[in-house]
């Protein structure tokens, strides 16, 4: 057993760990895209107060926001095959990554729904009334007047959510996905040097978080000049 921490190994491990960064990017991209789409549907169900669906959305959002993402991941992993099995679909041969993707989409949908809902609710009623008064339909009002304004309000919270979603991906390894952290642990088991690997992963997350934050605040300034 060598030194507790060998700085040279940080550079040695860097390429092997960075080679798994696409997994992280994939999870974030799918989670944010899928989560925003599903979240929009959930938000609409709540804003329009669609009977049954509204109550279901409230229940769903509260559950997702009130439970750890790590547990959600395992519930999806064990529960999703059962659920789809009822419908006659067999996904027992799915790779673990697919379950991670599904659970992160479902997780982000709840957060995105709340961001979208409160942003839409913050658009003054007068805007909607004005849109109706010039003869726009309900859908046109939403798409052309309300959502563009809500988008600006939601943007900072959306950016913060994306950064959070990226940090949450660090838990995918618990399901056995070989992402950066999984790779660091695999190296650690082989070489008894796990700390160096963790440091590499930490550095990558720091860089990615700072980069995301900076670009979102830059975009925010572009969108909202005042």
């Amino acid at each position, binding site marked *: 057993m060598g030194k*507790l921490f060998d700085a040279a190994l940080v550079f040695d491990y860097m390429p092997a760990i960075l080679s798994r960064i696409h997994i992280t990017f994939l999870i974030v991209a799918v989670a944010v895209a899928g989560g925003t789409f599903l979240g929009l549907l959930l938000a609409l169900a709540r804003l329009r107060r669609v009977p049954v669906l509204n109550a279901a959305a409230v229940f769903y959002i*509260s*559950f997702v*926001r*009130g*439970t*750890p*993402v*790590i*547990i*959600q991941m*395992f*519930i999806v992993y*064990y*529960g999703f095959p*059962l659920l789809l099995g009822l419908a006659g679909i067999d996904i027992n041969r799915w790779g673990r990554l697919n379950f991670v993707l599904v659970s992160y989409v479902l997780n982000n949908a709840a957060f995105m729904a709340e961001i979208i809902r409160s942003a839409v609710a913050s658009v003054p009623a007068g805007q909607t009334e004005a849109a109706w008064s010039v003869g726009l339909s309900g859908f046109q009002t939403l798409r052309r007047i309300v959502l563009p304004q809500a988008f600006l309000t939601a943007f900072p919270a959306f950016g913060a959510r994306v950064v959070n979603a990226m*940090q*949450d991906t*660090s*838990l995918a390894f*618990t399901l056995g996905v070989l992402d950066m*952290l999984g790779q660091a642990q695999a190296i650690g088991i082989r070489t008894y040097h*796990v*700390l160096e690997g*963790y*440091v590499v*992963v*930490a550095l990558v*997350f*720091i*860089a*990615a*978080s*700072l980069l995301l*934050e900076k670009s979102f605040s830059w975009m925010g300034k572009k969108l909202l000049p005042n």
Partner: protein
Amino acid sequence: MTFDAAYILVSLKVAIRFLHVTLLLSVIPLAVGIAVGTPIAVCRKFRVRAVSQAANILIPVLKGIPLVLYVLILNFLILKPLDRLAPYYAWADRLRVMDKIYIGIAAMSAWAAVTISETMRSALNSVPAGQYEACFSVGLTRTQALRRIIMPQALKFAVPVLCNNFIGLIKGSSIVYVIGILDILGGAMTSAQINYRFLEAYIAAALIYWMLCLTVERVSWRLEKRFKLKTGG
């Protein structure tokens, strides 16, 4: 394998016995986070040289590290030296095999200090500059201004966010299961080890976390309402 809701109840009964572990892992870090994060935020607000410069660089960096890495790295940093000492010192050996909850608390506390210092910073910034100036104009010192005028107003902003931070700590504490601490999640898992009812066990754990978070949310609403009443608007 089929789903049997009755097993949820079985797992619930086991997992609830570990409620205190999850509470220790979230309440202590909340307290540490407030105790450490507030002075950091105050130093940054008043531009106290050494502290604020260090914090301006460190906080954004530390904020970028996911909680699970805090847990894994601290676990390693505490256990490895103990491993080496263990052959020579009995106390080191005992610490090594002891419940690792203290490692979990330390890691959660470090993460909480970073998060909550940011909460308190935006809380201090939420108080208009004119309030600070008015304090100074009637001759209050910085400490007096903070204690009597600024903090009471900053708290109105901070309390709901702190409650959110607390919810984040409760949920985040489940991560310590990766270093083998038996909290609500770990406890639920022990029940599944016997009967292989994993899905039911995870649902049971989720239900407990959900109830905890809903309770905190309730308290948050109450506190917010009280603050609104107190300043008459």
